[in-house]
């Protein structure tokens, strides 16, 4: 059935989280844009309060056990998450990324952890550390090493740009157990804060999402228990299963980043519209787009783009709920939403004129915030690569 109107249950969740966005996030959005690195303690009320709704928690694994399959009028977990994420992105992206216990590491743990690991770490706030100084988009080239020594793994290396680095309780660290094996050697490990040899080196100062902390970790002969290797302990020599497994979590998280972008773009458009209407511009979706003022025309095109990015995002999430392979759609959503969200928030600042660059309003902040959504969890270019390889049926050797 093709029907793109949200059911009641989804609208209820939407309005509940819109309430959080408006009443919890917005009032402190500017405060933590200025107080960079300070933990937004107002978010403590959200710890554990979110249940499965709208948090950064993708479903079990994308191959699926079938229990989240949507029935008739209710939507699946991915769709509900996307809807919630848009609302919170609409509230404030930096704050949304700082909700306790909802780190990217939590997504990885939920996706691949064993029962014991879930018991032990499931409730801990988990960051995810893939990126290294010499390894960004090319995440398969990481050089942090993990060597088994008796009952312990010994980790050495440097991880940068880790979201929630200061606030998290554990970090999922990507490292190679066999540098000669390439991607097949890459595994992920759970490292607890306070482990000797594991040090938070510095926190970054950023363009936007300043409410969210981003830090560097140095691992120096850091010893962790053998059981902290995430997921199955078996190291298959020539298999990239482990790497691909974690990559797969991106099929769930990329639509979430897209949803954040939809939320920020919506916030900017809403303010722009409010000010335009105050100024006497009538927006009624009626007249020939070429006969209206350039400002109205611009506004309509931006809103059309928002509609487009949101529908792509919904589709990617809906496919995941229906256990369809959604790698292509997830990247399409992130490519489109990341790029257009950036453009929309830029353009809104322009349409708002002096109000758009003044810190009296949040538009200038939204422009700074939304830019990250075209960068992390795979830059726009990387998404285009994935899409192009997919539709052209080219390997990563043929299209680099």
């Amino acid at each position: 059935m093709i029907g793109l109107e949200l059911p009641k249950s989804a609208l209820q969740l939407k309005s509940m989280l819109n309430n959080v966005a408006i009443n919890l996030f917005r009032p402190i959005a500017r405060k933590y844009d200025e107080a960079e690195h300070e933990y937004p303690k107002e978010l403590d009320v959200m710890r554990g309060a979110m249940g499965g709704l709208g948090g950064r928690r993708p479903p079990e694994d994308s191959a699926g056990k079938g229990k989240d399959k949507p029935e008739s009028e209710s939507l699946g977990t991915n769709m509900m998450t996307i809807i919630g994420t848009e609302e919170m992105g609409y509230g404030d992206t930096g704050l949304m990324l700082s909700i306790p216990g909802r780190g990217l590491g939590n997504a990885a743990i939920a996706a691949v952890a064993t029962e014991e690991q879930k018991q032990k770490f499931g409730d801990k706030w988990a960051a995810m550390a893939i990126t290294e100084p010499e390894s960004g988009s090319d995440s398969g080239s990481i050089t942090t090493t993990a060597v088994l020594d008796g009952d312990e793994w010994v980790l050495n290396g440097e991880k940068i740009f880790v979201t929630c680095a200061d606030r998290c309780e554990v970090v999922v660290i990507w490292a190679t157990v066999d540098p000669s094996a390439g991607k097949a050697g890459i595994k992920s490990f759970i490292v607890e804060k306070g482990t000797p040899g594991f040090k938070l080196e510095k926190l970054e100062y950023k363009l936007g999402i300043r409410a969210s902390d981003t830090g560097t970790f140095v691992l120096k002969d850091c010893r962790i228990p053998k059981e902290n290797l995430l997921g199955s302990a078996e190291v298959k020599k020539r298999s990239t299963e482990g790497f691909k497994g974690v990559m797969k979590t991106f099929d769930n998280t990329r639509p979430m980043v897209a949803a954040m972008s939809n939320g920020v773009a919506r916030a900017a458009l809403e303010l722009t519209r409010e000010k335009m209407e105050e100024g006497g511009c009538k927006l009624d979706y009626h007249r020939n787009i070429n006969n209206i003022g350039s400002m109205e025309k611009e506004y309509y095109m931006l809103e059309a783009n928002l509609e487009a990015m949101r529908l792509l995002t919904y589709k990617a999430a809906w496919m995941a709920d229906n256990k369809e392979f959604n790698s292509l759609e997830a990247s399409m959503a992130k490519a489109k939403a990341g790029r257009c969200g950036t453009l929309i928030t830029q353009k809104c600042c322009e349409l708002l004129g002096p109000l758009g660059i003044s810190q009296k309003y949040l538009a200038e902040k939204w422009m700074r915030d939304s830019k990250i959504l075209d960068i992390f969890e795979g830059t726009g270019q990387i998404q285009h690569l994935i899409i192009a390889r997919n539709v052209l049926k080219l390997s990563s050797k043929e299209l680099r």
Partner: protein
Amino acid sequence: MFGFLMSKEQKMIKEEVGKLVKDIVIEDAHDMDENGEIPIEAIQKAWSLGASVSKVPEEYGGYGMTDSPVETAIILEELAYGDMSFAIAATLPALFIFPLEEMGTEDQKKKYLPLYCKETYTPCTLAINEPHFGFDPVEPKTLAVKKNGSIILNGQKCFVPAAEKASHIMVAASLDGKNELFIVDRNNPGLTVSEREKNIGLYPLETYEITLSDCEIPAEDRLGEGRGCDYDKVLQKTRIAMSAIGTGVSRASYEFAREYAKDRVQFGEPIAHRQTIAFMIAEMAYEVECMRLMTWKAASKLETGHDAKREAYLAKIYAGEMTMKVTDYGVQILGGHGYVREYPVERYYRNGRSISVLEGMAIV
């Protein structure tokens, strides 16, 4: 119910139309374009699928099925994927039939529907566009005035498909400041049909400029008679249709360029192996998807009985802009080969230009 999945019937009709397009349109589209003509047998074949009359009650010659704008949008995309002129020509009578069926009085339906809901394709048409700078479908300059129990129409229309052959033309005009539709007989002495127009694209589609000078029609030929009609609703339906057609034209360009880029070797490698080309193709892929989803969203809103003014408007302006972008990329990816008429991408580019300019060339 929320979802992106086509129903069984929708899949079936998509396949059926897709097959028809593959068999009788795609191969011939080039010749049709060069000859400026669509063979009537081809149109008749598409007509025989019955999409344009499916929701008309059986007593008037239709199948009495429930109205499905989504299904019509799917059909239009498929047809336009084959050829945009063909999509417009083959579904042309629907532009007359749909408003009549939805907004006409019993008498009007009885009188006109059986003329057009027949086994054989019988042209009738709709006139919305006007040949003046600043044209706006919501502010037609064509005027209707009540006089002695009749209605007098004055104005000019352009891009009226099949105006020469159609026996009735539905004309958009403003009556007492309200936009409405009026049925004009082809033989009305106040109606003049000029020479066939020549346009940037849509060569096979016959279109005409028409002039209404003191064109008198009986009051019964005002659509909906005394109560008039919901012109905005008609506009919504045609806007969704234009975006469905834009999706089809864009998809044609995207798929052609994609396959070409894999075959064409320069500097020792297929050009698709270069990011500059590959990324354009990626963009084409998701923009086609965006256009389609926006079309579906607007159509499904109508289908569930809601007003789709905003969604239809956004879908149309988006498709207008993105069809240009995608079909432009299509030509660029083929380079000089894209510029010559041997390949279809230049045709998609020319045809695509009209998505954002024209209104009311098809309906869902």
